[in-house]
Structure formats: C-alpha cells, structure tokens
C-alpha cells in the first residue's frame, strides 16, 4: 500500500524550533514528528511513503535515508515548485501513488498527532465501498474549523461547512484520508483545496464516508498545541504501552525519558514531560508539562513548566522557566534567570529576566 504525507511549507507557526529543522523533523515525544506517522503507516502494511514538500528537501532527504534503512520502508519526496494547496500534491505524486493494484492509499496531514487507527480505517473503507474515507474528530468549538456534516449511522458525508456561524455539527476534518486511486482522476494538477473542491464533488456523488476518530487528536503546528498534544499523547501511551513510560519515586504522572538521558538526585519530574536523547537533568530539578529536546542540560535546582527547551540548550541553576517559554536550538539561560513566556531564537544567551511574554531575536 502507498501513502502520501502532506508536509507543505515553512512551519512558521512553530518558530523558533523550525528555524533549526524543517517541521516534520522537529521532535515530538522524543521522535521526529513525521516518524510517528511513518511508523503507524508501516504497521498497517504501507510499503512506500511519499512526502509532499516544498521546503528544504536536502535536509529532509538526509534524514529519510536513515529512516528508510531502520524501518525498511521506501520513502520518497514529491517536491512542489509552487504551493499546490491540499489536493494538488496528490496529483503531483500520482505516478508514485498508483501501482496498478487498485488498492486505496492513505493521505496524512503532517501536523496532526493522533492514535492512527489505520487498520480500523481500512476495514471501514472496505465496508462502505465508497470512493473515499475521511477521519473526523469531535471538537468543542467547531466554528474555528471546517465542519463535516454527515449521517450519524452510516458516516456518509453530506457536505463541508467552513467555519460555520450557526451550529451544523461538531465533527471536523482530522486530516487523515483513505482514497481509491480513482480520486486522482478528479484532481487537476494545479493549486487545489481538497476540502473545497475534491471532497464536495465526491460527497455529491455519495462516495465520501467519515469515521469518527477514536482516541486523541491534536494539530501540533504551534507551541501551545504542541504542549497540549504531548499530554494527550502520553495519556494514550499510558493506556496502550505503559512500559514505555518512566516510573520511579521522582516521577509524577506520565513521563517519557529517553534511555540515554540522565536524571540527577532529588528531582521531581512530571506530569506530561518528555526528555530527549543525551539530555542531562541535574539534581534538584523540577520539570512539569514540558519537552526537553536532544542534548539539552537543565542545571541544578532549576524549575521548568509548560515550556519547550530546544536542542542543546541549557537552563541555568535556580532558573525558572514557565508559561510557554520556547527556547530555540543552542539557547543558554543564565543562572537564577526567570523567563515568563519568552520565545528565544537559536544561538542566544539569556542573561536578564524576561518578565512578560516577549520574542528575543
């Protein structure tokens, strides 16, 4: 089976992290974002993944060679020379997605994190026999998104309504599709929106069905959603593979620690913390609701909450980092410094307090 992952562009909402790496390679729960999706696809028998990208293909391609070898799955890139929207990239990758077997192919949006119930989706798709299946997820505030109006029992999609002013439903497009190859005949090779052009056509022909996504869903394209997404992900990990989480007297709630990371004495870690490879957490440190990326060091007695500490950064002794502070790559926060929502670009030293949310270039 084949799959296409829509990686798209510059990832500007995840800056400053995306100033160092293209978004799909930014780590989430100690793994590059895109690896979560590639692993889920491999697990249901996908043998080739096409990445639709339009930014920094050279950096991506280097990483992909590593993944290809480790996962034994073929990974190729389809490069957009101009932004092709959400459907155009499918037409662009047509030759790679159609292999003559007639099997449907997956399309995933790279910003999304979820449990990826792809096997259930394959069953659902076979059962209804329609041309296309789409995952939807229930949200509290549907009018922020595109709402999918569907028949509750069969899942047959009636229509899409973009940011509805009046309530029409509470299920939104979760960015996971399973499509028959015939869908590609309906997409022209030009910038096209899959929600505004392609899916309405298929729905009108009674061929589009929606499955409600079991489990969590999050668009982690921006820092605050990234932090919430980590909580949901670790929650789900607790239910499915609790052995992967760390336990101990110094651990509270769900905590994921890479095996090469070191944690000192007298720390209190958690809830909802991910500590990446090669990290050093010195003694007496308090971490909660945060991500510490590869190679970072948290010095003694520091306290970090609701923040992201970028690759190879350091947090000084007795420093307090909180309230959506995002440190880019190689940022060094001095001893005893307080940062409240500072967003710091890569390769900086912070030697004075950041009292209110501010961008430090």
């Amino acid at each position, binding site marked *: 089976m084949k799959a296409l992952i829509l990686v798209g*562009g*510059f990832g*500007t909402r995840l*800056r*400053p992290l995306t*100033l160092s790496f293209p978004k799909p390679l930014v780590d989430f729960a100690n793994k590059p974002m895109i690896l979560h999706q590639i692993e889920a696809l491999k697990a249901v028998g996908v043998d080739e993944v096409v990445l639709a990208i339009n930014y920094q293909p050279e950096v991506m391609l280097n990483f992909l060679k590593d993944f290809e070898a480790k996962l034994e799955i073929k990974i190729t890139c389809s490069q957009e020379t101009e932004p092709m929207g959400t459907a155009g990239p499918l037409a662009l990758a047509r030759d790679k997605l159609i292999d003559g077997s007639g099997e449907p192919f997956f399309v995933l949006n790279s910003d999304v994190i979820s449990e990826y119930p792809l096997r259930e989706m394959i069953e659902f798709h076979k059962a209804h026999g329609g041309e296309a299946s789409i995952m939807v997820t229930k949200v509290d505030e549907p009018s922020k998104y595109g709402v999918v109006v569907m028949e509750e029992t069969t899942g047959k999609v009636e229509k899409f309504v973009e940011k509805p002013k009046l309530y029409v439903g509470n299920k939104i497009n979760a960015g996971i599709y399973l499509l028959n190859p015939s869908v590609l005949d309906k997409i022209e090779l030009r910038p096209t929106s899959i929600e505004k052009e392609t899916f309405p056509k298929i729905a009108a022909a009674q061929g589009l069905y929606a499955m409600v996504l079991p489990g969590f869903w999050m668009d982690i394209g921006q820092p605050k959603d990234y932090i919430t997404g980590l909580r949901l992900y670790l929650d789900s990990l607790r239910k499915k593979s609790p052995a992967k989480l760390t336990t101990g007297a110094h651990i509270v709630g769900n905590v994921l620690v890479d095996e090469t990371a070191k944690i000192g004495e007298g720390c209190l870690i958690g809830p909802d913390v991910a500590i990446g490879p090669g990290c050093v957490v010195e003694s007496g440190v308090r971490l909660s609701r945060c991500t510490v990326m590869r190679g970072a060091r948290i010095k003694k007695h520091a306290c970090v909450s609701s923040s992201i500490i970028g690759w190879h950064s350091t947090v*000084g*002794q007795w420093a307090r980092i909180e309230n959506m502070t995002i440190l880019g790559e*190689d940022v*060094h926060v*001095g*001893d*005893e410094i307080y940062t409240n929502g500072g*967003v710091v*670009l890569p*390769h*900086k*030293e912070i*030697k004075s307090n950041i009292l209110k949310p501010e*961008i430090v*270039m």
Partner: protein
Amino acid sequence: MESSTEEKVVAVILVGGPTKGTRFRPLSLNIPKPLFPIAGQPMVHHPISACKRIPNLAQVYLVGFYEEREFALYVSAISNELKVPVRYLREDKPHGSAGGLYHFRNLIMEDNPSHIFLLNCDVCCSFPLPEMLEAHRKYGGIGTLLVIKVSPESASQFGELVADPVTNELLHYTEKPETFVSDRINCGVYVFTPEIFTAIRDVSSQRNDTATLRRVSSYEALQPATRIPADFVRLDQDILSPLAGKKQLYTYETMDFWEQIKSPGMSLRCSELYLSQFRLTSPHILASGDGTKSAIVIGDVYIHPSAKVHPTAKIGPNVSISANARVGPGVRLISCIILDDVEIMENAVVTNAIVGWKSSIGRWSRVQAEGVYNSKLGVTILGDSVAVEDEVVVTSSIVLPNKTLNVSVQDEIIL
C-alpha cells in the same frame, strides 16, 4: 620619508561568523551579515574598496568563521571587479580579534608586507587608510588606531581612550567603561607593523600569570573554563590596554562620520552615510530624475541598473533599490532599503524600512516606522519573501521570512 617600492601592504578584514551578530537578525537569518547590502553594495565591499586606495596593496584577506562556500562567490567576483586579490580565510574556531590575525600570520607575512591594516567589517566610515599609513610611518610605533570624538554619553558603548594631544601617542585604553574616561573612542580600524605578531604571542604566553580584574557574571564564573584559551586573544583588552603608554601605539583622528552596523536599523543609517559620500566621490552612481522620463528622485538615491521604477513614483531621500526590484506607479519611497526582486505595487508607501529579498508590497499598503535607528522596532524590517497584502499597514514591526500579512500590525515581532 619616501616609501620604498618594495614595501607592500596587506589588509585584513574581520568578518565574524554565524553565531556572533544575532543582533543583526532577522536580516542575518538567510545571509551572512558582511554580505548584507549597504548603499547598494555588500557591507564588506566598502572597506575592501577603501583598501584599494592604499599604495602598494598586495592582498586583502577576509578572516572569519563562516563556511567557505558562503564567501566563495563574492570573493571571486570582488577580486575581478576591483582588480585586487581578495581571499577568505576561515578560522576553525573563534580566536578573538587579535587571535585571528595571529592565527594566519604566516599567510599574511608571505608577501613580506611592511604594514598590515586590520579593519572590522561592520564599521561604517570614510576609511582614511592612506592618511593613517602616512601618520603611522611618522610616529614610528608598532600600531596606529583610528579614533573619533563622540558625545560623552555614548562613549561608554565603545573602547574609550586617551591620547597625547601633541605626540598622538595612545596613553590609556579601556573597553566599555562604567565611568567616564574619555570622549575619544576606538573606531576599529588599525595599521600595524609586523611586530604586532610578537606582541600577540607574548600575551598568549603571559596569560596564565596575569590576574585581571574583570567583572564576570555568575553564569560565566561557573563555566569550567573561565580561563580563556591561550589562543583566544582580544585586541582591545589584551593588546591595546597593556601596551598603552609605552610609546608603541599611536592614534589618528578622523573628523568624518563613523558608525557601527550592529542592528538592522543601523544599516539604514549607514546606507544614508555612504550614499551621501557617493554624492561627493562618485555622483554618477546615484540616481536622478524629474518625473518626465524617469521617477522623481529627491536627495541621495541608489537604483540598481536592472531595477524598474515607474516614472510616476517618487523616490528619496536615502533610498537604495537593489537588482531586479520593481517599483510600481505612484509609489513613494523614503529612507528605505529595497532588496533584490522585491515588487512594490501601485500607490504603496514605504518609509523607514528594510524590505527583504523577493517580498511583495501590495497596492495602497504602507510599511513604516519612526526611523529611530538604534531602537529595536525603530525601523520596520521585512525578511525574505514577506507578502504585505493590499491596503495593509505595517508599523514599527519586524516580520520574519515567508510570512503573509493580511491584517495591519503595529509594534510587533512576527515569527
């Protein structure tokens, strides 16, 4: 005293490297700061072409720790254009302002130069290099510094020095002092005789013995290596301060302009200074027009030959337009730098701003700031490929590359 025809001069320009100069962001996110255009030419072009006026110039070296490939194209182009051999030397790690010079001493001394100029690439001034050399020869010391008088309030940002009013000898030097020492400051332009290498070598070997009283933050103090590595030698603290008052170092004062290009806003100010200098030295470079066949031009304006400016536009003062930019009908540009491939559509206004490569400015939109060069949001900066949509107003803001603005913004940094 006549200079022998055998006496060659070598110039070394320090260009820094990628982890220094984060103050120049966002302009330095996609281009090394020394290559950022000022008055239509890369920043480092101005000191290099000043070096050309030095008699018997044998070689110009650019020393820094950027990747070689970032400078390869530029160096071969400028060597051809100015007919001066220019070469980029990459330091494997930062050695400090004097350490870098020392690190490459063998290469520098290959031509057997009698004198070596050392310049910082982010200095903006008239570079009176031949005059400095002549003065240095008369003084007979091992080095001469270019100095300038500034306001007492601003002096503490720089290296303050005291010079003998009669002999011009450097009597005292201190870097960024907390209390007032002097209103004469170090411009970052020096000429040395080869004995400077001996002086640098002596510092490195003496380093472990001398106790220096230095303010150190608790962060630095806890670093395992508070001792600076022996091969990291700073010109100011390690050479100039100790040698002051020993009849080795002298000063040459310039009465012209001087600025440091540390922040993006300052590049607009320095563009203004260089453009007004072109008015005196090479007025044919500047644009002119009265609205009939070409756009109305006011004051000092540079327009690259490949740029297209509509005749109904009004440009200036202090505007620099780079290659392949397109300025549409009815556009007003005041005090700005428009970089390559920018498109400015009808009736837009840009004032006190820098518009990054390939950006587009929509119809009737307005990109503006107060024009306070040294303040963080005093000049509006648009990074590469920023799109400002029609009728949008961008005020006192910094916008990182690849963003589209479809609503007006003020006093914001947009990542």
